[in-house]
């Protein structure tokens, strides 16, 4: 497909009904499809479309719920032993929600056409679902005893207290 990116096209090779033809320069697919929309942007939106779009966004936001639940169940099934697989699993448990939350802006882009569309709440919901997995991951870490959550986790490197007196045994 790489040759499609260049704008070289032999006119002799142009055969009707072949798909890999190049759109002419300046051709915009969106304008071609909906010329009215381009002409009158201030026209009020169809309320139904907006509600459907909003609904779709919510569906998108709650879609990972199943996957997160599955992950947590699997992690729970794995037990608290520290082996290579449970380490991978826990790492995944922590890293995937983080990356999903970080990239949530791309999942819920601001729609310039539908300004009144609420992307923030579904995005927050999406983040909340992933945060649930993150919290479960942390809980998993804690039950694997990998979180420095008690004072005893800090004490083991405490230096041995010095003695004020020195006795030498000549025995």
């Amino acid at each position: 497909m790489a040759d499609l990116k260049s704008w070289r096209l032999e006119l002799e090779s142009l055969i009707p009904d072949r798909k890999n033809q190049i759109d002419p320069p300046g051709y915009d697919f969106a304008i071609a499809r909906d010329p009215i929309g381009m002409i009158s942007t201030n026209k009020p939106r169809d309320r139904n479309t907006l509600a459907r779009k909003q609904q779709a966004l919510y569906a998108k936001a709650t879609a990972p719920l199943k996957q997160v639940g599955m992950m947590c169940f699997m992690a729970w099934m794995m037990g608290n032993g520290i082996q290579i697989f449970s380490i991978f699993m826990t790492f995944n448990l922590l890293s995937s929600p983080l990356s999903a939350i970080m990239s949530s802006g791309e999942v819920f882009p601001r729609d310039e056409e539908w300004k009144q569309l609420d992307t923030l709440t579904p995005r927050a919901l999406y983040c909340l679902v992933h945060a649930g997995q993150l919290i479960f991951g942390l809980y998993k870490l804690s039950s694997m005893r990998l979180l420095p959550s008690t004072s005893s986790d800090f004490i083991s490197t405490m230096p041995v207290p010095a003695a004020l007196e020195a006795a030498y045994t000549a025995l």
Partner: protein
Amino acid sequence: MSEARLILLVASVLAIAGGAAALFEDQAGTYDWYKQHIGVATEAAFHPSKPRVCVATQQSVVGCLNLRDGAIAWRKRADTGVAAMLMMSSPATMVTAANRTVRMFDLEGNQKWQRSLPGSSGPVLLAELPDGGDTSAKGRLAVVQGGTVQILDASDGSPVGDVQSEPVLKRDIVLVVGPALVAYDVGSKNMAVVPLIPDVQGTAAAQELGSPLPLSAFATSSPAGLAALSSDLSALCVSHLTDGVLESTLSCTQLVELVPQSSGGPWRVAATSSGFLLLSADPGAPGAVLLSEEPGTPIKLLRYFPDVVSASREVQTEAGRHVALMHVDADGRLRLMVASTSTGDVTLEESFPAVPAHGRVVGQPDPPQPIALALGAFRKKDKSTGYRALVSLDSGSLALLQQGVIVWSRDESLASVEEALFADLPAAASDSSVLEAGGAKADMNARIRYQVLGAKVQLKLNTPAEAEELLQLRGVLSDKNLAVRDVNGFRKLLLVRTSAGTVAAVHNGDGRKIWSRRYTPDTAPTHLLPWRSYHDIQHAPEVLVMRDAAPGAYATVLNAHTGEQLWHQPLPYGVGKVVPMHPPMHEGSAVQSTYILVEQLANGEAPPALHLLPDSPASRTHVLAAQRPAFLVQQAPGTSTLQGFSLAPAPGRPSGVIAQPAWQVVFPDSILALASRDPSEPIQSSVKVLSDRSIKYKYLNPNLLFVASGPATGAALDGSAGVGTLASEVTATLLDTVTGRVLHRQSHAGARGPITAVLAEHAVLYFFTDIDTGRQVACSMELYDATPGREFSVLDYLFNPNSTLPVSSFSATPIEVLTQSYYSRLVPTGAAVTRTEQGITAKQLLLLANTDQVYALDRRWVDPRRPKKQKLSQEEMEEGLVPYQDTLPFSPLSFTTLDKQVLGARSVRVEPTRLESTCLVFVHGVDLFYTRTAPAKGFDSLEDDFNYALLLAALVGLAGGAVVMQYMSKQALLGQRWK
């Protein structure tokens, strides 16, 4: 994807490498070595029928060596402290008396019988009774101890007659003359005669012998009679034996008349079949005299041999009766003479080169002098009689001399190692120094071949010949014998001090001697200690060699790499104790060890007089101005009292320090064992975190002393069982050595010593004997700080640099002692703890068993918190606790000494390496054993024989596979597109 597989592969390879538990057969000897010794021979005799020579040695070993190469055919070691040893001629056997037992071994090493000694104390005399033509008296052995006499049948050890008690035999010198015993005190003129076999003698009455001159300790007996030197060493007094009766008066002959050539000094007297052999006991005027003596005629000089320093026993050959005489030249060459005892004629005179020294001999030692000489005869091919001699030299060499050549020589100088100490080797300056140091530079081909063979063996594609070649190549390519230090700190110099007065440096790669320094018996050192080490690599470490007995006490500093003497200081006082101080003093890049010398005092009442070594203003400041008061604790001589002294500055005193009595603790019984913490022991953490995240603070007081007291070892018990045994109690006491305060005390009823104790970190382990079961009991104690309401704040710890407060013995800390007892199948005679650089690695206890082996016991087996139930909770399992069992586990794979027996093992020396997982272990006794051990397995290193070729092959294979697969997938995709 291929990357992930690669990581997995590497991880699994590492996991396999780290998980290797025990040693495989082909790994034995790759980094451990074992040196068998027989000891410095004091008596020797050639085997009557086999090509062997049998010896009895200073190290209480009896054994036989192969005549061809000097290899040990067999050997047996009597328990510590052999009182007497005898080589009997008929039957040809060896008899030892040790630890209240007489044992007889035949010349094949089998113990024929053993019997308890007749007396309870005092020196033991073993004597073979002459047969005297009477068949009933053949093969009998007389055992004399402390005025009691027992005659034993040599064939089975059965007693012949009852034990005779003869108080007249409690004299300085006891001799067996014919069928009678003769006893006298040195300097007296009277001798008591006790007939040994009353029915043969005809009379049981003791008789007296008189001498015109007082007698000295130099005396001998022969079938012909009795001879003794007069106490002024000028005359030889003889009493003849005729028909089993000694002449009632000794006749004395002036030695000057007999031997006009001699200068006249102390002589050792030995008997020959036709007279006496006198050997000068004065090293300044060596010489030997053969005298002939027959009843009715005066003593006659057969021959005088000037310069002879050693003589053998008389040997009967086809050509007559002969003795061997030996002379040592100034350059160490040996001259052997074989002389007839009946005529005094020299039948053979041979010269031998000096016995080769092992390693470099430092200093200007005198040529080694013979300690023992044995003569053997053999028949040559031309049917004439040839002679061979075994000579044992005071340098520790044992050599077989025959026909002008040294057939073999053994180095036995390291058979009596008393102290050992690890030191760093020199750093490699360049590659050439490595070569000079003895390392073989193997070519690349050999290395590649080694790796290929290793891969083949690992994949089991090898032939037996290839496996053999692999082992050989491993030896050739191993860098363990280089005389330079390595990155991991595995290669070290092992400095040893022997009781025979040798200080030597041994390479820990194969146990070869690098240098040795010999001292005469009156200057033999008694201490070997670290002195100075340097952080920079240009300087060699220095060691301190000390002799403590006054007069003649001294302190000498030697260069550990060359053995060169750097400094020598005679000490005008006797040194009772040498106390190392901790921490050592830092002087620039040097770390200087400092010692307090406690002067030997006659009475134990006065505070000890102290001296410093080195005694410099810096060391005085270091002792007293280290911002902490110093104390000294010692056991009052001859008592069971521990005394504590505080050290105070005394500018007027020569040492600048005086000891003032601070406390004393009197123990009702005798002190059986003491153990204290090594102050230089690295401790990683001062707390123990339990599985429920609660914190236990370890009690890490460096001034802690463990004292075990109880009835003295060997003391008789009140009763045989029941109530009587319960009265015998072993008490374990934990003392604070600064204040003398008893921190904890616990008693074991029905227990007794000997006790072996070891104290490491916050744990004590001690072994005692349970009288009723007769079993060995291990008692483990763990000490924790039990200060109520002790809280730990993370914020305080993180942000307050002064959050760890120093502890003082004067502000008492309550302690919590967890304790648990176990039966032990091992009977330990000594114990040590493994030690690693940071102290992170779990420790193992190295128990020196009475079977001369070292057993490595994991600390978790003696954890006092082992729960008394079979089903453990998750938390308990997580903590690594093991269910309690009354007997400690015993695994044959846990012997640090592998399948070896370190004869007479005396002590274990542990040294950390630079790898946290690994430490070096040296076990010494008559034998030497060295190995490397990783108590928690080698978690930070690959095995020495890790096959890099296989890893490389796997990597290349994977990379190649990935390239091929990529190409193939591209082709397949292209093919699909074109469809």
